[in-house]
């Protein structure tokens, strides 16, 4: 059975890119969200195997969203995506419970390495 992912990013461009990478690797996209609130709702609706979460988003940001998701499901596997130079935000996200991170701009191989490694656990 293919693995299920929830993609969270405010930029359509990024969502599309991620979608292509995941689909090509045989993943199923359960939903896409463009802010934290949507992400929380979608997560609880679909309970995906993995969430790719952008950190900086209008409204509820990625870190707050992942905290809320983990509150309800401590086993949630969330990978944060962030631009280079947002080191402190990444650290904060990991400290808050993100399992790994991807730095933009990313390449397909990088993204897949991180997520496959996480799913294999």
């Amino acid at each position, binding site marked *: 059975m293919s693995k299920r992912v929830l993609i969270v990013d405010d930029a359509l461009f990024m969502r599309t890119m991620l979608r292509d990478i995941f689909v090509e690797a045989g993943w199923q996209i359960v939903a896409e969200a463009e802010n934290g609130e949507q992400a929380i709702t979608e997560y609880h609706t679909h309970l995906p195997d993995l969430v790719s979460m952008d950190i900086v988003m209008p409204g509820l940001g990625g870190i707050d969203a992942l905290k809320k998701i983990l509150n309800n499901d401590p086993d949630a596997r969330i990978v944060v995506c962030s631009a*280079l130079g947002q080191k402190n935000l990444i*650290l904060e996200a*990991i400290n808050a419970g993100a399992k790994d991170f991807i730095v933009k701009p990313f390449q397909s191989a990088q993204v897949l390495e991180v997520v496959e*490694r996480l799913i294999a656990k």
Partner: protein
Amino acid sequence: MAASKFKEMFLTEAAEHLQKMVDILVQLDSDPEDREGIDALFREAHSIKGMAATMEHHQMAKLAHHLEDRLDDCRQLGRISGVEIDRLLDAADVLELLLDDIRNEQPERSVESFIATLPKTIEAEVDTGEGEKSVDLAVNGCGQLIELRLRETVAAPEARFLVLLKRLADFGTILESTPSADDLMQGGCSNQLLVRLDSDMAQDEIHRELLKYTELQEVSFPDNAEKEKAKRPEKGTKDKTVRVSTELLDHFINLTGELITNRNQLQNILKERNWKELEDGIGQLARLVKNLHHQVLQVRMVSLEGLAGRLSRTVHDLSRRHGKEIIFQVDGADIELDRAIVEELTAPLVHMVRNAVDHGIEQSGTISVKAWRERAQVLVQVADDGRGMDAEKIRQQALEKGLLNAVQAKTIRDYDLFQLICQPGFSTATGMGETSGRGVGMDVVKTAVEQVGGILLIDSIPGEGTKITLKLPLSLAIIRVLIVECDGTRMAMPITRVVQSVEIAPDEVQSSGKQLMVHYQDEMLPMLSLRKILKLPQGAPLDPIPLVITELMGRKVGLVVDRLVGQREVFVQRLPAPFDQIRGCSGGTILGDGEIVFLLDLQSLFERRREK
């Protein structure tokens, strides 16, 4: 009677300690991470053990000792589980029963079966409802070191390391890491991470998991060789363990981390041929090595407390046997010395104390053992307020034994005279103990003291008592030496054996018959030539004459050398067999310039001469 007085005291005090133990245990139940509480508990068990052993209540001592070990493990863990508290409360009940046995003059019940019911190691047992750490911490294993190195191109290395730390935490418990998670959160780190992980997982399994992270350039397990060694202890090395505080281990891991950083820095300098940075790098390395040296010495240090207990026991037993009333005082038992020195000196000190009881104290008196530090030396003094030594009788004996001629017997100072009791021929004299006020075996004591590079001094006043002082180096392996040169060869003497090094003018040399003498402070000292002793060719006349004032066969002498080179702190290595049989040479060291220098042991050279 003294014994019954002790018994009452013991029963009262042991009961108090036991009560305190129970009180603390109950408190800990509500606050299992109260370090001070655990420490206090440990001290109570320790006190009970010491008292019981002194009174020869072996079962009680055994159980208390076992509790002490368990509590020490809890100290390392920093917490005590509810299950363990229950076990310890059970143990306190057994101790109570043992006290009853002793009180009723019955033989103590055996504790063997009770101890057998307790699990051997203390795990970090998680009480229900806490569910925070579900991993068992095996206390005896101190974890394995894992060194991770990131590729230089990896983005956000701190975050990467943080992820890796979390991943490693899935495999076991992270005991330490350099940098720590907090350091990583603060940002700023180099590209390596050193982790001490306590895990049940096999090393290659961990290795395989880590290899999934292509961000890592290198994964290594630095202390593997050490661990393998530890698994297969060689014969006879079993007892050679030292208990090390976790704080010291922390220092070690920090230093290791810094050394790795330093290595990378130096490698980088080499790669980029950036020689301007080299001086900084080497300076850093020097600082780290010095620090490491200091810490390693600390690991080898043990206090004299165990020894003091042993001595107090000896005094107690002997005074009971001889019906003497002796007050035994110990001062400075917290002074620390190299473990090897303490081990070497245990028997000699017991011997000295025994002498003081047997021959020093007549009916009642005080024996005190005092230890204190003077710069890089530790002084241990055994003093009694007994009858003291009779200089006249020693003089007569020495004359009879031919150790002194008539002239020497007249002029010898009391201080030097007392040293004669350490002569092998002297101390075995029959009835020596009775006549001189000092017993047999002082030659053995003196040899042991000199073997660890120390000096033995004897002071005695008739009717007031005897004081025997040992001047000891802090550590065996690393000592300060005086380097001298003779016929183009450099040699080292332990600084503890050197009274002073001076240079004198040739006209200060006087002669007394064939013997050249020199005036030093208010004594006339014989001058000996190191060249002559070592059978080296005679050298050119010296001006000024370099002289090392040292003690030989209990007498101060002036040793003439070609040149005084200076003092160094050196790491002394024992010579491998058969070279360890060479008289006059007690080891070797390598100086900074690569030259091998041997450690002179003049005492044994002179013994050889006399034997011939």
